[in-house]
């Protein structure tokens, strides 16, 4: 079955956006970003492509959601950023997980599997 990709819109408190886009559960985007950086450091576009890839095209992350999340997570100390060269020789800002970010990914993964299990059970129950 073919389905259209979900767009990730992370809403900050002061931002006003048309309400017709799907809002992911708060914190989901953070988790996806952490997951995408688990193996290697990536720049912004790399992260968004990696999320598309690992969610098999379900999630598309737009810059308007991605960058506020990246900057917030960097300020929270989960990510560290450095400037580097991209594969086609462009300067790009690369993000990688810090130790705190790795811990956060672990606990988020556990929490998420608990929640998805619980919701799955709830929906399947009669």
């Amino acid at each position, binding site marked *: 079955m073919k389905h259209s990709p979900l767009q990730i819109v992370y809403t900050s408190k002061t*931002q006003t956006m048309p309400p017709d886009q799907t809002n992911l559960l708060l914190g989901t985007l953070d988790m996806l970003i952490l997951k995408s950086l688990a193996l290697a450091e990536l720049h*912004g576009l790399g992260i968004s492509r990696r999320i598309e890839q690992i969610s098999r095209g379900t999630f598309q992350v737009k810059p308007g959601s991605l960058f506020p999340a990246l*900057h917030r997570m960097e300020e*929270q100390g989960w990510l560290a950023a450095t400037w580097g060269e*991209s594969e086609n020789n462009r300067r790009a800002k690369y993000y990688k997980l810090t130790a705190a970010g790795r811990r956060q990914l672990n606990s988020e993964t556990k929490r998420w599997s608990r929640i998805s299990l619980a919701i799955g059970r709830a929906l399947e129950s009669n």
Partner: protein
Amino acid sequence: MSLFTRLASLKRNLFRRQRTEADLDAELRSYADLLSDENRAQGLAPDKARRKAQIDFGGIEQVKEQVRDVRVGHYIEMFFRDLRFAFRNVRKYPSFTTIVVLSLALGIGANAAIFSLSDAILFRPIPVPRADNVITVDTAASKLTRYGGSSWLDYLDMVARAKSFSSLCVYQGLSTGMNASTTAPGSKPQNVAGLLVSANYFSTFEIAPVAGRDFLPEEGITPEKYPVVIISYTLWDRVFAKDPAISGKGINLNGHTFTIVGVAPKTFTGADIFYRPDIYVPAAMAAQVTGDGADTLKQRSYRAFEMRGRLNPGVTLAQAQGELNSIMSGLEREHPDSNRDNVAILRTEMGRRMELGMTAVPSLLGGLVVLVLLMACANVASLFMARATSRIKETSTQIALGASRGALVRQLLTESAVLALFGGLAGTALAYICIAGFRSLVPVLGPAEGPDFRLDSRTMICVGVACVVAVLLSGLAPAFMAVKDAWSAVMTTRASASASRSFSSVARRILIGGQIALSVVLLMVGGLFLKSFSRAHSVDLGFNSDRLLLVTIDPLLQGYTNEQAARFHEQLVRRVQSLPGVAFAAVATNVPFVSGASWDISIDGYTAPDGEKFLDITNSAVDPSYFSTMQIPILFGRAFAPTDKRNAPGVAIVNETLASRYITAPGDLSKALGRIMRLRDGKPIQIVGVAKDSSYGGQIGAPPPAVFYLPYDQQGGPRATLVVRMSGNENSSATSVAPDSEASLVVPAIRAAMSELDSEISPVTVDKMTDAISRQGLFLPRIVAFLGGAFGLVAMVLATVGLYGVVSFMVSRRTQEIGIRMTLGAQRGAVLRMVLANGLILASTGLIVGLVIALAAAPTVRSMLVGVSPYDPATFLAISAALLAATAIASYFPAARATRVDPILALRHD
């Protein structure tokens, strides 16, 4: 997340903003470039690839804004943006800013000044740790009073028997102070405020000396054995330049050498808010520093010590009171002569002050200043509303561009806060000036005595609270209304039409009406007090206060005994009487408006309805020439004579009030002659004269108290006041010599006469009676009249400015309408009347409401007025007329402007 990373981000975001911004810009551009690379790789032409990338990206600026919103310190940045905007507006509308800041400064400054006044005379806790659990113990002969000192012997017994107290101490202020000099040669003696204390005085108040040590227990007990003192921090600083090796240094007090053992901390200025001692002397050394040292410590009836204490943990005030009651009745059984009917009264320090009845002036003035602040806020609120209406297009543009309600309200509130801050600063300056004024108005009672007015942290907290109140009251409602109006303006596109009938314009009229009503109340109070104050000047005091000089002397400070002092005074009076320019001279222990005392007396044949025999009566010991000097007529019997010597039979003169209240019918005062009265010692004193009533200090215009006089030779003390009536116009024509220049001739002559007798003695104070009355008797009436009048004027100015604002605003709103009327043939006079009527209707409504409130509130100030009814019709009429005139002027100018409207321009208006 860790606080540290958060702080690091905060620092980066706030202080390296440009770098963070450049970094973000580069990052987003690089993202867009990578995206267009991707598109190119999929086979698009370079320019199409870039366009598609840009479309996919969305607006770079929007993304940047979203990133900024999540940054740490985002709110701080927004706050600074609001602040910059506010400051820009402050500069952009200078007249608006001035009026708002002045209004708030008056409101806030008045509150701060009155708070500081009330704090100094009522609220400020004594400067000791845990001040709220200091307990006061008064001793009083039952029913006469609830205040009174304790004797040293009673104190010692109480300490030995009471179990409720963790500590109990006594102290006694030496009201004339002491002559102190360092033991260094050539040190000049200076008058210092002294306090006689029990050795546990400092430990009771939990005060530790900053240098040296506290008193030792034996230093407070063994009489005249340990000449030690603890000095105040200010004296240490002033005289000893904070010498760290102060302990063991000598100091001369009234000619006796004492050793300094310690220095009190800077914050500790004594346990009494009206007396700040320089030198603390153990009570055991009383003989060296007071005249009647032996009495001080040995007489049970010599009750001059204030008692303070702290309760043991878990003991309630009522339990301690119960214990003291039984101790006091025990003492009464053991010492029936001295302790008859004596009871102890326990209170907290604050409870005692409240009972002393000092609350009237602070609560009256406090109520008035809160009204002034409310008016200032109402004025500012109405100004804000007016400006919001004029800025409605600006605000609706902001809304159209996406500003949220919250952001707009926050921005307007920031502006109110900035203005309130300026108002607070200006108000602080105003309060500072007022406080300096209070200081100069306060009666000079002696060294370090009287309320201590100051602009301290407590006053500044009051300023802060007033500022916050001002922001909330004056800013909040207008901010919400402004945003609401602007929203509706966005919808209807026509700014003026929507606002003209809006809620805020009704609200403004109510605010202004309320202001006028409040200003009527304030003006009434101010007017009544001003009138009362001017009446107080002409009240008949019962003696002639013109050309009276008062010279207070205390030979005790030179170590005189009572007898030596009496001889000194006698000789001095004789010399002064013969000086040129002096008509009469007399000596008295207590002179109205200078000092006062009251003693317990019983009158044979008088018993109060409740069975009490003793009366607490104001008195003075005076010499034979006192009545002729003061020009107090003797109505019946005789004045004192030189024959009323120490060993002669005891005689007394009573005033009319005493005679008519306690002895005989008012119409038959001569029957008081020959009756016998007694002091606590029980010796008979025959009444030989009845003097005319005269004021004895206190509130001018109040009915004179009962007073009795005793001969100076029989009951006088060393500290006395020389009363001198200058002859003035007797020698020359009536207009020649003004009292001031006359005094400048007589005073040096008196000083010379004094130093001829003893070169060491100099007057403690020299004063004119009129000045003493003005300071002492008119102190509170003057402050109340001055402040009441000032508040009334401020209120009227605020209300007038407010009304002016409302009417001008209305004119500008209705310019178009006026234009149409005039095009259709309305006369200028008709337009003028229409606008004037609009203002005057508002003003009269406020006036009527205000008059009703003022009439209802009038009885509350009755007791504070002298010779003026609280319903004084003249004052009511004058206030109403003044207010109507002011409001008419305030409405006239905008009305006149309305008549100059050019119909053509008006129709094009908007």
